[in-house]
């Protein structure tokens, strides 16, 4: 897939940020580009389902549920990516590359697979939308 440029992100950013603010019941200025939706904005699991639904409606795209986590594995098999619920070393490198918008210091081993969504930022969802638009 062709790389996603900052310009691509900037194009969808305003609508994505507004959608996140709606879904999380916060003000738009609280939705920073590198804000972790869970750690900084208090998102819960159901909020992600709601957010993805809202993004689909706003951008008129289809986003299969669990898409980010699935895509984040890249070419790695499940066994290569995780072992006993923890992201492997190779997995972590792959994850850093895939979630290039997330500040590097936030990737700390050992990282539980279940904790991956904590890394997702506003720009992560911009990229999700862009990939769905290109699909």
């Amino acid at each position, binding site marked *: 897939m062709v790389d996603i440029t900052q310009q691509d992100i900037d194009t969808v950013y305003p609508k994505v940020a507004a959608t996140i603010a709606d879904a999380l019941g*916060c003000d738009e200025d609280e939705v920073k580009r590198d804000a972790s939706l869970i750690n900084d904005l208090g998102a819960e699991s159901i909020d992600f389902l709601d957010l993805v639904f809202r993004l689909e409606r706003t951008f008129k795209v289809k986003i299969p549920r669990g898409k980010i986590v699935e895509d984040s594995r890249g070419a790695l098999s499940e066994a290569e990516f995780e072992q006993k619920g923890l992201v492997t070393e190779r997995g972590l490198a792959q994850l850093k590359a895939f979630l290039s918008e997330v500040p590097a210091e936030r990737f700390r081993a050992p990282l539980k697979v279940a904790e991956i969504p904590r890394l997702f930022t506003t720009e992560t969802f911009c990229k999700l939308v862009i990939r769905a638009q290109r699909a």
Partner: protein
Amino acid sequence: MTARRRVAITGLGLVTPAGNDVASTWATLQSGRSMGGPITIFDASGFSTRIAAEVKNFDPRAVIDDRRLLKYANRSHAFALAAADQAFADAGVRPTPATSPRWGLAVGTGMMGMGWPELSSLGLAAGDGEDVDPERLLASDTGRDPMVFCRAQNAAGLALLGRRHGIGGYATSVHTACASGGQAIGTAMKLIRRGTVDCALAGGFDSMVNPVGLAGFCLLGAVSPDNDDPTHASRPFDATRNGFVLGEGAGFVVLEAWEHALARGARIYAELAGDGNSLSSYRITDSHPSGDGPIQAMRWALADADATPDDVDYVNAHGTSTPMNDRSESAAIHVVFGDGAGRVSVSSTKSMMGHLIAAAGAVEAAICALSIHHGVLPVNANYVNPDPDCELNLVTGQARPHAVRVALSNSLGFGGSNSCLAFRHPEFDGGRA
């Protein structure tokens, strides 16, 4: 033997067609002004009944400072959140992380979780005929909106209230149609008596002012068709009554173990002293003409409250304004009070705010607490023509100043559920050793 715990009502919250808080609702109930009017929430022009008592000028975002929580709230949940907020503010006490497990929650839950727009959209999306087309259903905006599913849960109101207020003890949702609100409050009282919790938030919420709710009540002939005169359509116990006026809203009370309330110097509106619950086991939508069912509920509530019929000064009747309910309830009042039936004051506040269905018993419990606190009995509005089957000492014309030792609140539901709550003046000790 340890004495049974007494239960104090220390906080009230109301969102009703008569007002969006306790003060405005209470003022309307004293004025005798009936709040029926043309339905504005949806286009009711094709229905045989086109009137209701709606909650007006209610903006959830203006009164509830948690937008995320409102995402999970339908219209009736928003009423509940607002009324519960009021009750806590009024009581001046709320759960803390330390006291949370000692707080309970009992809620009379509204009948319908899914609004018409969602239902209609689902129906349109799911297929052309009677068969569901799962692909179309799951592709539709409503079918794949997780919030629609969350809001439609019968436990959604309970979950939202518990979360907003950090209630961590026993919580339950009650649904027994029009008896729900009363039974929820009675349940909370028993939780405190048993020592399961020390304090509780209890109440009810509902809004059936929607196409499906209205259609059902029109079909049953339960709602008044007096579209041209909505402020006189609800006339409980009047000989010309011809159905109820559909209302909506929420009522919540904060209940505390007596010693808990005293220890913090709380204002006690009234003692929640007893409840009686019976099932008429008769017919689904008919009340027993003899008053069987409500009779037992009232007697058990009085016994539970250590009170006799002579102690009762006020009955807030279920009084829906349907021919059958009012006749049956009058018969029950005559059986319970015997020769004293002419002495006890009776009013149905549904004459002014309509029938709040699952919220009715909770709102009317708050009204009984206010009647005791203020020594004023609200009006039974629109009573003009006496019905020989409903000879009661009705509070007509204007509110009646009257000291109240014991008040009863009846809530009688479709399906035969009968709830009666008994309230005592905090200083009335008659009947107690």
